[in-house]
């Protein structure tokens, strides 16, 4: 055996299954469509290493929507090799939804690749009063069937022991109708469901999806999520990161500053300007001061708290319900409800948000969603800095920035929906039951994403700070400032120097907000600056992903929209505030 293909419907716990088999950490979520790319890992089968490939979830091998097309293409690619090389398929089945899941199983069995079936979420069948005769099912399908619980690891020893027994049943090609008929017959024989009344928990589930109760609950969830993110973020900064910097890092830096003679080129690049004889992490702008403090001391705490809350929301199963509730509004801006998921991801970092727009059906939807994310969804790093510079003036100014971004997001979406040809497709989304987020998976996910942030962001922040210093030293900022003064000063009411921040915003928006600090801006100017910076242009990482995902031409269109919108909104704010 060379490879093991992991296949199943969306939302059967396949990613958790994969990380259980291989020990590789995959981001799992309690909503369909998390996996948009192949994930590979290794497992041991009978002492031999085998490659495991996590194929994105699909209901069928005959694609009916975009996410399935992706999965089917990958499957075809993999099967071509698989038939040649004697690979096998582990078909992960949601045991609580046997009937629906078996359709893919039957399709897989027609592919002439050995199959073994894992009845996952086996523990849930017990609480739901579902009884499945595993032996009978296995006999009927003519392949091994093993009950498993990916979250706890139950059944995996047996599964791995049985993997080599995977077999190819001799099944001819069936029509859709025939498959459903077969399934009806087998389910009747192997499954028996106890009749149960609605549990208290199920009633709660219904409340969160009915518009009348669901919308207020959604507003409450959003408010609480924001509060909790801020509470944890500020707590981490106040009790962990700031004391660490003050007590351990600052003395080191001061020694270095003395060593470098308190001034001069290298001092300015590494430590930056001394303010009142000491370092000011937001204003000094040296590589080792601001360059380290912004990503670690300001942004990282919020990245941690954001992904903790997002992870809890993802794994609880709340997001698909939010998608259903938001479908109405989203249709008006040319998307359907599920686009709320990439949007929420964008609040962490725009890059995964834009990657996740792959689950949307049409090119038009992807264009609208990506443009809206780039304009109206500030990433965690940017938000942390906005809260950092505006938070001291109370909740009002921060709330105003969010309100302006939200209104722009809605209005622009509405306009794009009217202007672009085409229509938005209908929502059809499975709503998984609520689950308590497994803490082990949750903490791993936070750790994984935070590590990703440091690996991706830290070098660019440092480079950004370095470039800021060089551009200042070379007088290039002065040149750009003179050149763009009519727009920046005339329309937006910002000082000429603020243009330097907007330029650096292309590199990293958190660094750019930091550049506002030494300028002594008024609250109004800070609000305008933050809004313009959020919307003006995507940061370099987002920019590259946009080109890859929507192409050069659409990227240019999107960039035009972004620049025009930000100048328009910024000027309006300047007039109104």
């Amino acid at each position, binding site marked *: 055996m060379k490879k093991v293909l992991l296949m199943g419907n969306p939302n059967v716990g396949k990613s958790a299954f994969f990380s259980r088999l291989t020990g590789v950490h995959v981001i799992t979520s309690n909503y369909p469509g998390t996996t948009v790319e192949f994930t590979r890992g290794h497992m041991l089968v009978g002492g031999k290493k085998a490659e495991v490939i996590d194929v994105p979830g699909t*209901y*069928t091998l*005959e694609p*009916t*929507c975009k996410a399935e097309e992706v999965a089917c293409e990958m499957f075809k690619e993999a099967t071509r090799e698989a038939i040649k090389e004697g690979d096998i398929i582990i078909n992960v089945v949601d045991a*609580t*939804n046997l*009937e*629906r899941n078996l*359709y893919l199983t039957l399709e897989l069995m027609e592919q002439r690749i050995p199959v073994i079936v894992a009845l996952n979420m086996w523990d849930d069948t017990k609480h*739901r009063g*579902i009884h499945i005769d595993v032996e009978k099912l296995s006999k009927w399908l003519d392949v091994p069937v093993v009950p498993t619980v990916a979250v706890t690891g139950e059944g995996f020893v047996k599964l791995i022991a049985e993997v080599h027994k995977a077999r190819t049943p001799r099944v001819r090609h069936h029509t*859709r109708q025939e498959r*459903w008929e077969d399934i*009806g017959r087998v389910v009747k024989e192997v499954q028996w469901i106890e009749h149960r009344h609605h549990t208290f928990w199920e009633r709660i*589930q*219904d409340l969160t*999806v*009915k*518009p*009348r109760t*669901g919308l207020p609950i959604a507003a409450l969830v959003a408010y609480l999520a924001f509060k909790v993110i801020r509470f944890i973020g500020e707590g981490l900064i106040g009790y962990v990161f700031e004391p660490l910097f003050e007590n351990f890092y600052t003395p080191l830096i001061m020694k270095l500053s003395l060593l470098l003679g308190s001034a001069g080129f290298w001092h300015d690049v590494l430590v930056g300007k001394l303010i009142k004889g000491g370092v000011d992490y937001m204003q000094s702008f040296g590589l080792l001061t601001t360059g380290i403090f912004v990503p670690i001391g300001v942004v990282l705490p919020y990245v941690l708290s954001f992904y903790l809350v997002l992870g809890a929301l993802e794994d609880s199963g709340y997001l*698909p*319900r939010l*998608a*259903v*509730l938001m*479908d*109405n509004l989203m*249709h008006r801006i040319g998307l*359907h*409800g599920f686009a709320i998921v990439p949007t929420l991801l964008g609040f962490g970092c725009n890059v995964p948000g834009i990657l996740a727009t792959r689950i949307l059906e049409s090119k038009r939807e992807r264009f609208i969603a990506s443009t809206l994310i780039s304009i109206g969804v500030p990433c965690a790093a940017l938000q942390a800095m906005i809260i950092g510079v505006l938070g001291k003036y109370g909740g009002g100014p921060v709330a105003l920035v969010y309100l302006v971004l939200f209104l722009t997001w809605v209005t622009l979406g509405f306009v794009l929906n009217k202007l672009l040809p085409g229509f938005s*497709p*209908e*929502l*059809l*989304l*499975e*709503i*998984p*039951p609520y689950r308590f987020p497994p803490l082990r998976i949750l903490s791993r996910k936070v750790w994984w994403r935070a590590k990703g942030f440091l690996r991706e962001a830290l070098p660019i922040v440092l480079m950004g700070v370095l470039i800021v210093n060089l551009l200042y030293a070379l007088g290039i900022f002065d040149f750009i400032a003179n050149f763009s003064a009519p727009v920046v000063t005339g329309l937006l009411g910002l000082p000429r120097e603020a243009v330097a921040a907007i330029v650096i915003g292309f590199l990293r928006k958190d660094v750019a907000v930091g550049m506002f600090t030494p300028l002594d801006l008024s609250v109004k100017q800070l609000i305008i600056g933050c809004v313009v910076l959020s919307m003006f242009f995507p940061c370099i990482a987002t920019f590259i992903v946009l080109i890859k995902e929507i192409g050069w031409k659409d990227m240019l269109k999107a960039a035009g929209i972004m620049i025009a919108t930000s100048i328009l909104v910024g000027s309006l704010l300047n007039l109104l505030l």
Partner: protein
Amino acid sequence: MDMSPESKNIVSLIQMRSGQSGVVVGIAGGFGAACRLENMGIRPGKKITKVSGAFLRGPVTVRVGNTQAGIGFGLASKVMVELHK
């Protein structure tokens, strides 16, 4: 919509009240729509319960077996259900 006397009990998902249940009798749409719904377990002969729905032409949520699904307004109007008496 066919509202002849012998099919009085047949309504679309939109016309059902929340909490009502019935049996799916057909999907008045193209093959693509039917396939997508079938994959969710929504196909003729299956018992379906409407959980909530269609507020301001928003989506409908239904329960079929152990699956709960959200269905956009247009698609939901194509799912024909015979109501339980």
